[in-house]
Structures are given as structure tokens and as C-alpha cells.
């Protein structure tokens, strides 16, 4: 039991570091951010594309891809090492995650030769940014319940409907899209999967304003959008299986959550008074801090165990749901508690005034989304119960029912 790299891992890490040192600037302070001085999203996208091209030119763009598609066939642990090292440098992150991480592998599995030739090189060379068009207002946890319609019209398909929670839709070139091509069969059977040109006529992107005031996601409306049949991935009606392939390639996050964890809360507790003495001296506060410290520590070492498993060549399993399940609720509870310690001044979110520049207030508003996005608390408990503990699924009320006969509600 040790925390060190194996010799192979150490060698890989050294190689990564040497490369990064040659092309990027190391952070002088962990709080440093690559986009500190970036003025607009357009500029950010340009910088990201440029950086991705540098990676590509040096063979680091799609390191987990098979070698035949220009990748390095990197293992899970090598991806972790890359992430750990890359996070030390002032370089853009995330713009190509959907394309390289999800669309690429799906195309490798389901694309025909023509499609592979068309999409994979521009993905690898990072000329194009991709987005994911799966969730709909009526279909969140129940993804197979999507409604967006695809109808065959000659050699094309006509798409009508609405997608939601699409990151980067407005600056993406291509999207991966799941549609309902046949509403008269069971819900998993009537889906068809496409690649869609995001600049097609009839595609309208609207940002979603979140309760934080910011907007990281979009709604995407499709009105008579035409997609040529040669942009279909997989057979007509086989969209559910294609989508599962995409989702299985969703990146396992083993990174540490940033901002407002228990050590910051301890700092706060040293600096505010409660019931006439520093909060850190109050038994109730200490009790909560002990609880959160145990969770903080437990999550950290659960990540270490995951990384170790990857290092042994194992694929991380559903245990990883724990990170988000525990972490999201903990973030919310800690932020609420931190504000409580600030007492009457807890609501102030002015960065100039609030402790930690309003980090806890920001977390308070941001954290509800952590308990929902990427699987609600409830879905994650199902995942743990079913996939880890092997407990049975609930009977499905809509099992085998034709999609257009499944009861629906009035709420979106």
C-alpha cells in the first residue's frame, strides 16, 4: 500500500510533464485560471481550438483513442495522470470533451467507413466542437422517454422537437442527437441516432438562465431541420443502443471538487463568532466539522482507491457514483452552514465583502444543480442499489407499452 506511481506510471507522468513544460505555462498559484484575462467566449473558443491543435500536432489530443484512429490507446490510469498534470498548467479544458470523449468512440463503434472518414479526423485535429443533444424537457432521468421526432423524407430526415441541458450548443459545430423515429413501438425500440450540423436551418439555441444567474446550458429547438440519412449512426430504431455506447464513454470523474470544502469551513469558523466565542470553539460546530471531515477524507481516499483500481487495469464501476452523491449534498449543507455561521450577514454575496469572496454564497446557489445534473440523488441511489448491490429494478409501469400510449403528465 503506497501512494506512489508504478515505474510505468512515473515514466508516463514524466513524459506528460516534459511535453506540457515545452508548450504551456505552469501555474504559479493553484487558483490561477487560464481564462483570467479572456474577454469573450469567442476568444475562449479560439484559444481552446489552438491549444487542442497543439495537442493534436504532438499526438496528445485523443490519448485514449485506439492507435488506428490517431490515439495513444492510453489506459484509464494514464488519462488520470494526464488530467492531474494538465491541471497544473494554464490551459483550456472541457471544450472537446463531448467530441473526443463521447462522440468519437460512438462513431468508432457505430459509424460506417464513410462516416469514420468524415468525422474522426476533424475530431482528432480538433477543428470541430461537438455537443450532446439527449435530454428533453419531458425526459430527464427517463432518457428513453424523449419525444423529439424524426421523420423520413426521401434521403433526409426531418427533425422537430426540443432538447435541453446542452452545454456549448451555441459554439458547437456538430451535435449527437437522439430522436424518436417510431412512436408506435416500445419506447426503447423507436429511437434513431444522428449527427447533426448545428448550423443547419431550423436549429435555434437559447441559453438557460440558472438560479445562480449564470447560464452554462442551452435549450435547442429543432424546427423542420433536415439531416441527410448518411448522418444516421446505427440502424433506424437502434438509437437506444447507440446512445448507451455514448453514455458508457462518459468520463469517470475522479477529480477533487474545488471550492468550499471542510478546510475552508474551518478557516471561516476560526474567524466568526457564535454565541459569544469563535465558532471553532463551539461543540456543535466541531461536531459538524468532524462529520464533514470524515466525508471529505472518505471521498478523497475512495478516489485514491479508484485510481489504484485503474492502475491495476480495472474499469471503475458504479461505486464512483458515491463521489457525486455524497459530495453534492455535502456542498449544499456546508454552504448553508457557513452562511449560518455568518449569521445576519450570511446572505451578502458581494465579493468585496463576503468571506472567501462570497464562495459559500455562490456554492449555496450552485449546489442544488449538483444534486440533479448528471443523475439526481435518487437516480444515483438506484444506481448504487442496482449495479453495486445487485438489488432488483422496480417493475416498469411502461414496460413493453407503445411509446404513444405511455401516460404523460402536464408538467415539463
Amino acid at each position, binding site marked *: 500500500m503506497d501512494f506512489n506511481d508504478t515505474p510505468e506510471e512515473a515514466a508516463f507522468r514524466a513524459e506528460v510533464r516534459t511535453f506540457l513544460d515545452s508548450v504551456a505555462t505552469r501555474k504559479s498559484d493553484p487558483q490561477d485560471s487560464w481564462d483570467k484575462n479572456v474577454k469573450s467566449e469567442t476568444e475562449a473558443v479560439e484559444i481552446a481550438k489552438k491549444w487542442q491543435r497543439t495537442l493534436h500536432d504532438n499526438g496528445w489530443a485523443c490519448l485514449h483513442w485506439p492507435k488506428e484512429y490517431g490515439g495513444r490507446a492510453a489506459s484509464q490510469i494514464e488519462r488520470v495522470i494526464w488530467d492531474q498534470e494538465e491541471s497544473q498548467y494554464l490551459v483550456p479544458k472541457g471544450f472537446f470533451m463531448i467530441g473526443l470523449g463521447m462522440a468519437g468512440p460512438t462513431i468508432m463503434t457505430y459509424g460506417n467507413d464513410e462516416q469514420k472518414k468524415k468525422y474522426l479526423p476533424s475530431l482528432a485535429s480538433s477543428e470541430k466542437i461537438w455537443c450532446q443533444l439527449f435530454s428533453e424537457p419531458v425526459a430527464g432521468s427517463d432518457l428513453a*422517454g424523449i419525444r423529439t421526432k424524426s421523420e423520413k423524407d426521401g434521403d433526409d430526415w426531418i427533425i422537430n422537437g426540443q432538447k435541453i441541458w446542452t452545454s456549448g450548443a451555441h459554439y458547437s459545430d456538430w451535435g449527437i442527437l437522439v430522436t424518436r423515429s417510431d412512436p408506435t413501438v416500445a419506447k426503447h425500440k423507436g429511437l434513431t441516432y444522428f449527427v447533426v450540423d448545428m448550423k443547419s436551418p431550423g436549429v435555434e439555441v437559447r441559453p438557460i438562465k440558472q438560479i445562480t444567474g449564470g447560464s452554462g446550458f442551452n435549450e435547442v429547438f429543432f424546427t423542420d431541420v433536415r439531416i441527410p440519412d448518411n448522418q444516421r449512426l446505427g440502424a433506424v430504431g437502434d438509437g437506444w443502443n447507440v446512445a448507451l455506447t455514448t453514455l458508457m464513454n462518459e468520463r469517470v470523474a475522479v477529480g477533487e471538487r474545488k471550492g468550499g470544502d471542510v478546510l475552508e469551513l474551518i478557516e471561516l469558523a476560526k474567524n466568526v463568532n457564535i454565541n459569544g466565542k469563535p465558532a471553532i470553539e463551539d461543540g456543535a460546530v466541531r461536531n459538524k466539522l468532524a462529520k464533514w471531515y470524515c466525508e471529505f477524507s472518505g471521498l478523497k481516499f475512495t478516489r485514491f482507491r479508484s485510481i489504484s483500481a485503474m492502475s491495476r487495469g480495472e474499469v471503475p464501476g458504479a461505486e464512483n457514483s458515491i463521489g457525486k452523491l455524497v459530495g453534492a449534498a455535502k456542498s449544499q449543507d456546508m454552504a448553508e452552514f457557513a452562511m449560518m455561521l455568518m*449569521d445576519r450577514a450570511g446572505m451578502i454575496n458581494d465579493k468585496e465583502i463576503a468571506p472567501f469572496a462570497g464562495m459559500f454564497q455562490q456554492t449555496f446557489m450552485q449546489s442544488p444543480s449538483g444534486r440533479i445534473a448528471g443523475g439526481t440523488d435518487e437516480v444515483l441511489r438506484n444506481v448504487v442499489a442496482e449495479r453495486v448491490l445487485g438489488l432488483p429494478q422496480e417493475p416498469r409501469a411502461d414496460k413493453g407499452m407503445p411509446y404513444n400510449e405511455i*401516460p404523460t403528465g402536464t408538467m415539463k
Partner: protein
Amino acid sequence: MNFEFSDNQKLLKDQANKFLADKCPLTEVRKILESDEPYHKELWNEVVNMGWTAAVIPEEYDGLGLGYLELCMIAEEVGSSLAPIPFSSSVYLATEALLLSGTIEQKEHYLPKLAAGELIGTLADAEGYGSISPEGFAVTFKDGKLNGEKMPVIDGDIADFAVVAANGDKGTSLYLVDLSDASISKEVLSTLDPTRSQARLTFSDTPAQLLGKDGAGAADLEKVFDNAAVLFAFEQIGAAEAALDAAKDYAMNRYAFGRSIASFQALKHKMADMFVALELARSNCYYGAWALSTGDAELPIAAATARVSATKAMYQCAKENIQIHGGMGFTWEFDCHFFYRRSKLLADNLGSQALWEEKLISRVVASTAA
């Protein structure tokens, strides 16, 4: 035993409910949230016209002379509607402080104007981060003048006058201050709930007059807070119930996997737990209302119990309402965040949950020693 509000009191509640449903649907709350307006002036005027600001002010001071049970009914509805008005500041805090400690002259000057809505009052105690320690306020009073900074002051930018807790010759005392005085500098603060304004007030040789006995400020403040705690608690359970109702309505009508999501045990049990928290808080609030209305010696315990359980219930209902709404719950477009914001405002505004838990347990332990 009749541990319930009377039919007349319930009728008043129904009227308040209908009035606010008409004048203050959540679209009106949204208007204030999205604008620079510190509060909803038209609504405030209507509320004044309804006589709510005059409710417990005695008739001799042009009030309605109603009891606290009636005011609790109004508070529950004000809470339920999330009304963006300085009701709690002016009615539960400033009016209460005057009723408790004002001289006849002070009452004659302020109460009729408070009743008629000609003046909005507030109470300024907090001095920055952490809980206040009544032994030592940094704001000082000497020779008729206040000096120092109060931050945050709820409705401090709106109010015409404030009851200010400060350190005078004989220790903590309360003072009445006209907030239109030019010596005061006011800074509106950015907060998570812009539907209730908060400000920083800086006093520089600001004229003030003593309210209550010199040196009795800590004790007076505690009494005002106990009364206000019951009224805040009613606002909190009103809002908690509204959040639970919103969650229920959404869940009933949202389908996944071919059935209403309200039929899944995870959500059913979550809502059952919300209801349980609310129901326990409601029972404690009734106890608080009884103690407040009768001036019973149990008020300090009853008020703290109501306050603590209502604070928890509202936060639980507000945060789980978002969760039950799923992705829609964290969109700006849906109203869930209004309750979430307000839950923390009401929780922290009268002194935090930790403070009230400590008050509660000190008082209970003291009562067991007797």
C-alpha cells in the same frame, strides 16, 4: 381543549390568502427580484390599506387593537406569498420595540404613523459577520449622537426610522433614529435575496433618542426577538407549506417511466418527511402563538422552539422543492429559487438557527433546574 385558531381568525387568514393571491402572485415577487426596486411599493400600500400594519397597535394609537393570534394568521400568509415588503421589519421588529419600550410620547409619535403606513421602521443590531454579542456593540451613543456602523440592516435603505442597538453610558441600550438624517450614509448590499433589501448604515454624530430604559437594551432586545420569533416562524411555515405544495403539484403532473413521479417512493417519502417537519413546526408555532397572545411565562421557550423548528422546516421544504423539480428546479424561469433564497433570509435575519438553538436549550435547562 381548543388548541386551534378560532373561526374568525381562520376567516382573517382566508381573506389574507385571497388578497395576496390576487395582489402578490409569484410573478410580482419575480418583478422585484429582477428589478432594482428594493420592495414592492404598491403591494405595501395595499397591505397598509388592509390594516395589517395596524393589527396589534392599540386603538388609542389608531391601531386595530387585534391580538397576536390574528397577526400570526397574517404572518403565515405573508410568508406563504413571499411578499417583497418590509412587513417583518416594520411590524414584528420596530412596532414591537415601541410597544414594549416606548414612552407615551414616543408611542404617540410613531405608532399612529406605523399603523397608517406613513412610516416604515426597522431594527439595526448586527455588526458584521457572526452572531451579535449583546454585551458589546461597537456602535456608540454619547451626548445624543450615534457613531459607528450597522451591517446588515434589513430594509435599512427603505425604512424611515430604525431602532438601533448601541453602547451607551450604561451599556447596551436601544435608540430611535430618523434614517432621513443627512449624517447617515447608506449602502445597499448585494445579497442572495434581493426581494428583501439589506443595507449598511454608517452613523456619524447622528441624532438619536433613547428607547426604553438606559442600559436595558439587551433585555429589551431579547423580548422583542422572542415576540418576533413567533411571527417569523409563522412566515416560515407559511412559506414551507407553499414550497411543499409546489413540489407536490409538480410531482403529481410530471411523468417518467410511464407514471407520475409522485408515485415513486423516493419522492413520496421525501414529501412525507417535508410534511412531518412542517407539521411539527406548525404545532410548535401554535404553542408559540398561544404563549405570545397570553404573555405566558413559557414564551421564551415556546418562541425558541417555534423559531428553530420553523427555520428547519422551511429550509428543508425549499431545498427539496428544487430537488423534486429536477432540472427545472434550478432554472431561473421556475419559482423554486424564490423559496430557497427566502428560506435563508428568514433563517439568518433574526439571528441564526445556532443562536436560537442555544437560546432554546439554555432556557429549557434553566427551567429544569427550577
